[in-house]
């Protein structure tokens, strides 16, 4: 089993992926606002390079990359581990962070000669901190390390929400923080119980020792509940819309596309790596049912929003719901096909395509709001003529959310739909179809307005740079182009999962 092996070749890349952003954080704090932008811009291509190098390393080796910290083997030491899932998440994160960073340059620049402001220093530092924390989540293989990573992620994400310092964003950040505190303490309680019962924290070791006994059920339920609060699954989503809608556009993009997925990633690790094959069908159905409620509720509420950014935030609540169909559908599939089946691939495809589409939509909405000075949908009539590229980016992102071919969202939803039918769980298919129709309704409601008749003189709009519009469009095209790639790279998602599959088969 993986945890007994030593550091693999190029294992140092895993350390670099975590350490590089945090070195940037420390340097930014030491050198101040003017330097922080340059540091972030320097680290972005480096981080992207490291993520791609890890992904290609995993792909070529066909096995997980390992790094044994300090040469101490488990159970005493802690290992970093990159399997196919980590690789996919690392690359997605790097691309979205780079796009958000390039987009944010116009907003968080300290011009030569101008006095330094607080916001730019905070933004660039927190952006790097979010990146480092996410990489730590994806590369850890130890329950307590996960906890530390989650907390770092929360501490970096909460202040991003209230960068503008307006009262309503402060209230949103505080509410986010309170939900996150509840989530983290539940998670930690679960860790304490598991360590008390089994005496190990390493995911690999724990999975070979854990038994379906009451301690394990209580611990895993507590941890899952805590993580659901952080990933904002219905009915624990209350904090998300005001928080994501109030943040600056680049921060909203990162929060909606990546940060909530960090907690989802851990739920998957818990149920498919720590306790492989032991998730009872009823619990899986419950997670799926909460996901279904999120899809329907989030979409209906999104339809009724008067403000563009709140609409997009509620759409995030809905799209997170789709991810939770993975649990009943993977448990429902034939064990031999759990990791190469439609449900597994579809779930991750949904995650990645939503990350690109939602980041594009938040950036586009930010540009629209910047040009018009507000984001009230009813008063944005005809803005599509002034900002054609931004509105196109919004539209392409929206098509992916709806699941219209060709787009990543279509492939994801098609795979999940197929899996639902194959597993004989047709009720999820109905929810997905309804969710797609509702998404169509709220996207077209906005597009009808943006491409419709002008509600005011277009000349009064503030100019926005084409370069920033192009970044939003590039992300949206990324979401669409996922629909064109063959499913060959999906094999990456199975790398490093042989161990888990053996347990399922046993």
């Amino acid at each position: 089993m993986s945890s007994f092996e030593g550091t693999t070749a190029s294992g140092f890349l895993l350390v670099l992926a975590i350490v590089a952003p945090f070195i940037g954080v420390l340097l930014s704090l030491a050198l101040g606002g003017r330097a922080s932008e340059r540091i972030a811009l320097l680290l972005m291509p480096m981080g992207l390079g490291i993520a791609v190098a890890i992904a290609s390393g995993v792909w070529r080796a066909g096995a997980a990359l390992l790094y044994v910290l300090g040469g101490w083997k488990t159970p005493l030491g802690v290992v970093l581990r990159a399997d196919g899932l980590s690789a996919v998440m690392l690359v997605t994160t790097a691309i979205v962070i780079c796009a958000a960073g390039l987009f944010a340059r116009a907003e968080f620049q300290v011009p030569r000669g101008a006095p330094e402001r607080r916001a730019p220093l905070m933004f660039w530092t927190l952006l790097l901190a979010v990146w480092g924390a996410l990489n730590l989540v994806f590369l850890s293989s130890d329950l307590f390390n996960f906890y530390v990573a989650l907390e770092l992620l929360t501490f970096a994400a909460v202040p991003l929400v209230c960068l503008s310092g307006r009262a309503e964003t402060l209230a949103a950040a505080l509410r986010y923080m309170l939900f996150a505190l509840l989530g983290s303490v539940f998670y930690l309680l679960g860790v304490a119980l598991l360590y008390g019962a089994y005496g190990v924290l390493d995911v690999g070791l724990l999975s070979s020792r854990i038994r379906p006994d009451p301690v394990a059920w209580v611990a895993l339920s507590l941890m899952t509940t805590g993580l659901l609060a952080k990933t904002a699954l219905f009915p624990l989503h209350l904090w998300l819309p005001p928080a994501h809608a109030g943040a600056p556009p680049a921060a909203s993009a990162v929060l909606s596309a990546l940060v909530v997925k960090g907690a989802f990633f851990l739920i998957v690790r818990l149920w498919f790596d720590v306790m492989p094959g032991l998730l009872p069908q009823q619990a899986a159905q419950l997670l799926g049912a909460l996901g279904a409620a999120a899809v329907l509720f989030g979409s209906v509420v999104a339809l009724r929003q008067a403000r563009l950014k709140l609409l997009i935030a509620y759409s995030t609540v809905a799209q997170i719901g789709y991810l939770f169909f993975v649990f009943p559908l993977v448990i429902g599939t034939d064990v031999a096909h759990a990791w190469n089946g439609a449900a597994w691939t579809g779930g991750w495809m949904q995650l990645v395509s939503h990350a690109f589409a939602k980041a594009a939509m938040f950036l586009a909405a930010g540009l629209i709001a910047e040009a018009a000075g507000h984001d009230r949908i009813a008063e944005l009539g005809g803005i599509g003529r002034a900002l054609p590229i931004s509105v196109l980016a919004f539209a392409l992102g929206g098509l992916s959310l709806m699941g219209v071919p060709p787009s990543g969202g279509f492939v994801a939803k098609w795979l999940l739909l197929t899996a639902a039918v194959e597993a004989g769980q047709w009720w999820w298919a109905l929810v997905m179809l309804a969710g797609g129709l509702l998404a169509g309704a709220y996207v077209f409601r906005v597009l009808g307005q943006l491409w419709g008749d002008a509600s005011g003189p277009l000349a009064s709009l503030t100019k926005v740079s084409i370069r920033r519009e192009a970044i939003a469009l590039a992300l949206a095209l990324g979401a669409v182009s996922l629909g064109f790639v063959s499913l060959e790279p999906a094999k990456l998602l199975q790398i490093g999962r042989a161990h888990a599959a053996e347990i399922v088969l046993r």
Partner: protein
Amino acid sequence: MNGAALFGVTAAALVGLGLYGLIVHPQPLRKILAFNVLGSGVFLIFGVVARRGAGAGMGGDPVPQALVITGIVVAFSATALAVALLLRLFEETGRASLRSDVSNANDEAGGNS
């Protein structure tokens, strides 16, 4: 009842009290305090785990003790961040509650501008 069991029951009581406070009280400051009570309960559970897992001739298993130190640092930072947000909210609005909704805050801002 031996020491570990006594501390275990105390820890469970603290977790229960903290959870009750976190869910029931509407004021953010009380929620933050309740989080700290709940956190103390969890740390005490780590202590019980350390005592029960002690090797022969040792006072306790060092791993949970190391985890608790990290946990306390994290909980302290979380509390500091939450209190800082609350203070800032109080400075901006003169209120230290979340009860008046976001829509109200919007209306006020709209009325002033």
